């Protein structure tokens, strides 16, 4: 400790940031504070968190309120945006940069360093070693050794010092950089995330069928101009048969630039539309605030003898079945029709789960029958008199809910992810392997001494050396 006195402050700080101990402390800080962040719901209604506190610690409402007040002051109710959490991330990045800078020169030298022949007694001390005695003269088996080493993936060099011949080869010295690639990738991802925060936005857009918008909305209704216009041509939900579980939501979108259609694409969850850096994600859907007000029900009315006509209807509209005197009068609309135990109809959800229209039918002005026609139940389309009214579609009644995002950083984040995957692969599944094969001449035979080392995954190297030995022995048998 005493010899550190003459170091200046800069060095001291550098040393702290170059230390793995600091890294571990920062891991712990980020992890522990994040745990709090998963218990206290972030950016939530205070009442919710008071409930959480009272459930967890049995606090009364008032005590919960004051505890939450303290947590709020400390930033825990929106901690991922708090100054101290950003500080942790900054320290983390600084640690990573300085630590890598501190070590990189040494590692770089190691990577650049070429393998050299070693004295034979060094080989004895290596962690992986083996030997085999072959008949013949060194000159005669050199070729075999080169061939065998090549077939286990090394390109051997030869040296001859005095009498002893040695082959040596290495493989994957650059894999020592894997760790630094992983560390760099983390910085790239952080940079991409920061870029996204400053240059991008997250917004949403609820766009009713048939309508066009040139803006999206952020929290509290702040408008974000898109730079072009987006129109929703159609929206549909498909359900799994006989369930209320949606199978797909799909919106047909058209992009307009200066009034001209430039792009059309249907989007579903997991398959967004991208235009000029802005991405539209299918995320929800809902009923137009005006209900059927602006929209139409599309039906196909057909008579017994096959005359048919497609019609667009609104509540209050009258229509006639072609070729007959039967007239329908649309009285009511429900987005989600169900019946209670008395058989009385009611609307059970705000979503378009089970759309239906109520129609009165009359023949030559005489009231005949009336009932609900349901889009999802074709049985209800057949009328008692053999005519048929098919409920084909609805239009202009629903809106499609989209996440709208512009994030120029996401490309960088993805790039960082790819680099990280490469770095991790290099670090954990590859290694710097070195092999030395020394030939010592004996009476009528040559003793081949093999030594090898690897900076990790020694077991794989051991297997290769074993294979090398078997190859050499096989040569021997085959040759004589």
């Amino acid at each position, binding site marked *: 400790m005493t010899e550190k006195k003459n170091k200046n402050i800069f060095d001291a700080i550098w040393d702290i940031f170059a230390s793995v101990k600091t890294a571990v402390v920062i891991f712990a800080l980020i992890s522990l504070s994040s745990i709090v962040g998963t218990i206290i719901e972030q950016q939530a209604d205070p009442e*919710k968190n008071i409930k959480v506190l009272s459930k967890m610690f049995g606090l009364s409402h008032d005590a919960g309120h004051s505890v939450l007040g303290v947590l709020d002051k400390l930033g825990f109710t929106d901690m991922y945006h708090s100054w101290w959490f950003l500080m942790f991330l900054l320290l983390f990045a600084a640690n990573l940069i300085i630590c890598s800078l501190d070590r990189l020169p040494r590692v770089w030298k190691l990577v650049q360093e070429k393998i050299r022949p070693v004295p034979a007694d060094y080989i004895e001390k290596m962690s992986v070693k083996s030997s085999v005695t072959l008949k013949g003269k060194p000159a005669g088996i050199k070729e075999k050794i080169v061939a065998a080493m090549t077939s286990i993936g090394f390109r051997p060099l030869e040296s001859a010092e005095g009498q002893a011949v040695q082959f040596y080869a290495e493989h994957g010295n650059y894999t020592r950089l894997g760790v630094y690639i992983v560390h760099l990738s983390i910085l790239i991802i952080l940079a991409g995330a920061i870029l996204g925060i400053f240059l991008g936005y997250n917004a949403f857009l609820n766009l009713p069928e048939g309508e066009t918008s040139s803006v999206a909305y952020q929290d509290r209704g702040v408008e974000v101009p898109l730079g072009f216009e987006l129109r929703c041509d159609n929206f549909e939900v498909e359900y799994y048969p006989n369930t209320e579980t949606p199978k797909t939501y799909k919106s047909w979108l058209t992009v307009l630039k200066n009034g001209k259609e430039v792009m059309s694409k249907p989007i579903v969850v997991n398959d967004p539309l991208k235009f000029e850096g802005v991405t539209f994600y299918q995320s929800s859907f809902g009923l137009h605030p005006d209900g059927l007000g602006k929209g139409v029900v599309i039906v196909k009315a057909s008579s017994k003898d096959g005359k048919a006509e497609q019609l667009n209807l609104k509540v209050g509209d009258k229509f006639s079945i072609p070729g007959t005197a039967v007239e329908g009068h649309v009285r009511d609309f429900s987005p989600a029709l169900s019946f209670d135990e008395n058989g009385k109809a009611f609307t059970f959800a705000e979503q378009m789960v089970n759309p239906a229209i109520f129609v009165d039918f009359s023949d030559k002005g005489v009231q005949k029958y009336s009932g609900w026609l349901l889009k999802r139940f074709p049985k209800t389309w057949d009328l008692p008199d053999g005519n048929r009214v098919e409920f084909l579609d609805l239009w202009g009644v629903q809106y499609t809910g989209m996440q709208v995002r512009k994030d120029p950083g996401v490309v960088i984040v993805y790039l960082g992810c790819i680099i990280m995957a490469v770095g991790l692969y290099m670090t954990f599944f590859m290694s710097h392997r070195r092999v030395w094969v020394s030939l010592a001449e004996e009476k009528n035979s040559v003793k081949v001494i093999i030594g090898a080392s690897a900076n990790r995954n020694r077991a794989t190297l051991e297997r290769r050396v074993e294979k090398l030995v078997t190859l050499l022995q096989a040569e021997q048998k085959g040759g004589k």
Partner: protein
Amino acid sequence: MKSSFFFGFATITYFVAMMLYISYLAFRKSGIGMVATTITIVGFVSQSLALLLRWAEFAELGQMGWLRAVPLTNLYESLVFFVWCLIAVYLIIEFKYKNKSFGAFITPVAALALAFIDLSGMSKNIQPLVPALQSNWLLAHVMMSFIAYALFAVSFSTGLMYLIVRSEEKNEASYIFWTVTLGIFVATLAAMGLDFLTFKVAFMGKQELIKSYLFKASFRSESSAVVAFSYAATAGLTFVIWRFGGLLRKIITSFNISSEMLDDLTYKSIAIGFPIFTLGGLIFGAIWADQAWGKYWTWDPKETWSLITWFMYAFFLHSRLMRGWKGRKVAAVAVLGFIAVIFTYLGVNLLLSGLHSYGGQ
């Protein structure tokens, strides 16, 4: 439900294998070991068949392509897949290290996990996929996460065994750490077992089960006497483990399991698990979220806990590089890492979602 037959069969074989491995430990007859391995392989093949059949059933029901229909969409299926990975990893280790003693530690986990499914009556039905889940990224994400979890489970048991073997004095920090960890672990498992037993008696609807009922029969009971008793029982259990922990050490050391081998296994399983988790658990998860919701990272509790888990294992990898941090401290980090895994997988769904209102799937 053709698959359920093979699942049932696999569960039974894992139980039989568990008993055989334990008797192998006790009697050390190589014949018993051979039978244990054979039975485990039979169970594994049967479970693989069951997985494939369920895959086919799912593809048929959901009317989707094969790729989309991998049965990994709910708690039940993911637990089953976890067990499958665990047995696969175990068989590889047994084959590579030529040591069957670990079987006595791994097969109980597999058998208990499968029994837990049956006891819990958790929904085994094949449910059609809601739109957000229809993604190939999600599939790769879940599959790789579970492979990594299985590897982490191995590092947890070898890490714990390392601590057991290397702690001699009852007042050492490492001894206290492993006894308390094991005590809490066993107590939690027992409490969950109790939940399921009492839950069966209470005849509640299956959907309510795990979320609202967890620890209701013990630590979160209505009656404060039961709560007090549960904590006392946990403390008692921990004390018993602490008192007789030396016995466990003797058993393990008598089976040719050296601390170097345990250390090596702990490191190796994390060295393989970490990159798989990083790529599958974090990166693919982020890509999926990006495509489905338009945000690759939202700090939601599940994501945050995955990140915490990731930091734990980064801690493990780096702690080996610090002076004075060889051996027991590092093993303790591996043990804590897996506790973070369990929390990421179960705790977030079961505890935090009960605490918050988002619940849902």
